[in-house]
């Protein structure tokens, strides 16, 4: 799997500023498998919300609501 740019930036800081210690950690870190599912959930929520709102906006336009 290709490395993400976020991780690349993180790696850059770790390499060039080894003295820096992150002062806060994520409270919840999903495992790879769950992370994929959660990203899928985010995409699904996005599609549902987007299509619903676009349809309602188009419907309003057809009815002549500005």
């Amino acid at each position: 799997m290709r490395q993400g740019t976020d991780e690349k930036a993180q790696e850059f800081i770790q390499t060039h500023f080894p003295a820096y210690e992150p002062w806060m950690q994520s409270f919840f870190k999903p495992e790879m498998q769950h992370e994929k599912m959660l990203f899928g959930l985010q995409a699904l929520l996005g599609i549902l919300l987007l299509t619903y709102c676009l349809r309602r906006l188009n419907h309003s336009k057809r009815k002549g609501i500005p």
Partner: protein
Amino acid sequence: MHIMEGYLPFKHAAVWTLLSGVVIQGALRSARKEVSTDRQTLLKLGAAIGFCFLLSSLKLPSVAGSSSHPTGIGLGTFLLGASLMPLVGFITLLFQAVLLAHGGLSTLGANAFALSIFGPLVVRSVHSLLHKLHLPTSLSVVVATTIGGMAVYACTSLQLALAFHETSEGVLAAWYRFLLIFAPTQAPLAVVESILTLICLKALGRTNKEPDYATRY
């Protein structure tokens, strides 16, 4: 574009959080006022959040050998203007910080500033300029969204450079080094995002009239 949890020194994180917090609060007040007078604002907000959720969940491989995701700020900026976008970005970033450990609560302010304040302002300003120059609407949408997407990453790079630079090299040199990490991956994705934004605007018939944001910034 996420700065990971804890990867900004405390003072930097606090300043960005304060700055973004004030702007997000202002956006919330404006949104409440607008929704009470125009119910369509709620639908536009929903569409903008949906688009941002969808696009920022797509981790795509890019030509530079690494992966990233589009920002998803284009559609919302064209429908709502830059002034309401801080709400859209904040909701998306909070979801990712809490549930996905992408970004973080300590860096939420900095990430929100880049994604939902600076990016939309650039999209809005570039589009206004191109609109005044009477460029075809489709072209101005694509160009403004592409530049806005890149601006988000330029802002993130600057935030990191301000926090992490050698005294000998200075902030500008560090900014350039962080830009080199993000820009080659993000440029093609910004173009993809601009085309998706245009498709959505066309589906709404928004490309053959004045932009929705014409009455506000």
